[in-house]
């Protein structure tokens, strides 16, 4: 029997009105699964930041939540421009957000480093012109 629960959400780029909805749904699921609240908080921050990245920079993305008895995984696969220099993007405070975005409180350069900080395992792959894939794992043990 498959021991995991999977649910996939679609996020559309530039849709700021719905930004945050997926993280809210993910949190609701984790609360119903009885996941400890400190872990929920880490997953919430990581998924919210990923969702915002998609809204700000990509065309669209599938965000999947995979929960097994031992870990939570968030997989974000976007269709978008890709990240030219991942190392640079991983630096604290680095951001390519436009002035408008920043004025709205988005893209303070918290994105990727903040996701990494809240993950136990973090993987990122990006192909220019195609898109970026994030794999965020938070362990339950």
């Amino acid at each position: 029997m498959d021991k995991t629960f999977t649910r996939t959400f679609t996020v559309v780029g530039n849709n700021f009105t719905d930004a945050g909805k997926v993280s809210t749904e993910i949190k609701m699921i984790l609360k119903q699964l009885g996941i400890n609240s400190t872990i929920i908080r880490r997953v919430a921050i990581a998924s919210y930041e990923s969702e915002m990245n998609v809204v700000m920079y990509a065309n669209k993305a599938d965000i999947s939540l995979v929960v097994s008895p031992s870990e939570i995984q968030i997989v974000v696969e976007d269709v978008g421009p890709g990240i030219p220099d991942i190392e640079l993007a991983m630096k604290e405070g680095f951001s390519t957000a436009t002035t408008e975005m920043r004025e709205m409180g988005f893209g303070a350069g918290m994105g990727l480093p903040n996701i990494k900080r809240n993950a136990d395992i973090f993987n990122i792959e990006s192909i220019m012109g195609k898109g970026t894939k994030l794999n965020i794992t938070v362990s339950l043990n």
Partner: protein
Amino acid sequence: MMEEEFRSIRIEKEICHGCMSCMRICPTHAIRVHSNKASLIKELCIDCGECVRTCEYKAILPLTSSFSEFSKFKYTIALPSPVFYSQFGKEIQPGILLEALKKIGFDDAYDVACSSEAVSIALQEYLDSNEGPRPLISPYCPTILRLIQVRYPNLLENLIPIESPMEIAAREAKRKKMQELGLSEKEIGAIYITPCPAKMISILSPPRKKHSFLDGTIAISEIYPSILQAIPQITTKNDVKEVRGLGLGWPIVGGQVASLKAEECIAIGGINDCIRILEDIENGKLRDIQYIECHSCPNACVGGSLTIENQYIARGKVLKIVEKYGSQPCQEREYIRELYRRNFFSQLGKISASPIKPLDDDISKAIQKMKQKQKILDMLPKIDCGICGAPTCETFADDVIKGLTCADECIILTVKKFESMSGNLFETAQKHSRKIKSRWEDEKK
């Protein structure tokens, strides 16, 4: 846990018409309607009073005390929420209303707005001297407090640990009377004149400590008629105590932050907007904000479900009252700061979480149940029609998984089942009729 035992509302089944208005409005999906009667899932209710307000048939009753309960006290003190001052004519001064409370049977009346001003000063001190998590959240709306306990246990540490004005006022009022009259604390009853049923919960189970200094609540709407009658009897206008200070503005959205000097403070009214903000904070946003004043009611306490005056008019009156009596402080700032340093305002102890029950305590089983739930949800039309007795298709799927209802209650699922059943029936009937026909034709030959 004890506090699960009672909530601030009760549904009278006899009066309920099963119209589902309450079920649809409840922000936490705590109401179901089965066999034409509404019922409450206590662990989900956050005492917001939306259902009390919406029920046309008055089938949902708020939990407050009754006057007869107070006969056990030797001395009673009424502590009116500052909302009380906004429920009557513009020309009626707050001080006169305190006198009116004495006329209708309380031995004394004590102004709470002045304690609100003191609490504002204490809040400022706390903001200035504590690092800790940001934004800090106001704990004075018992509904928001409970919402955090149930849905956002992560944010309990953001609640500012400063005692509420009503507790500070009750403690002070009792202390003074104990000294003056030589009574013990138990002999004095402190009764809050409340705009909403939720306040009763913070008296019955105060969030951080074992006991509240208040002994009960009476709804503003309940004493309103007798106060109206009492007002004309108050003639000694010169003896009327002056009520003043910025605390008078506490019952409207922004009343708390108005007296804080920190710029990064925001005030929110309305349970759904509060939920949105709490979601944001949980996602790590709003770290630049220092203090968030949250009210479950859109217009804060002037819009509480147990008030009489139209909330917008009441709001206007509060603004007028503040203009008239607010500019002069009723507290001496330095003295309050000294009290703050002596922990006069501190709320000690931890607030416990009361998180929603998971689908199962065992994570593997919970995952399996979540998958089942998803399966059911995929079959449902997601139109939230409510005919099944649950407010949304999603809550219905939850209920099925928890064994609280069965899938047949969904009219769409039943129709589908019936369709496939009748499809089979039709086929079987056709098969049989073909058989009979051919035999009949055989026999004819």
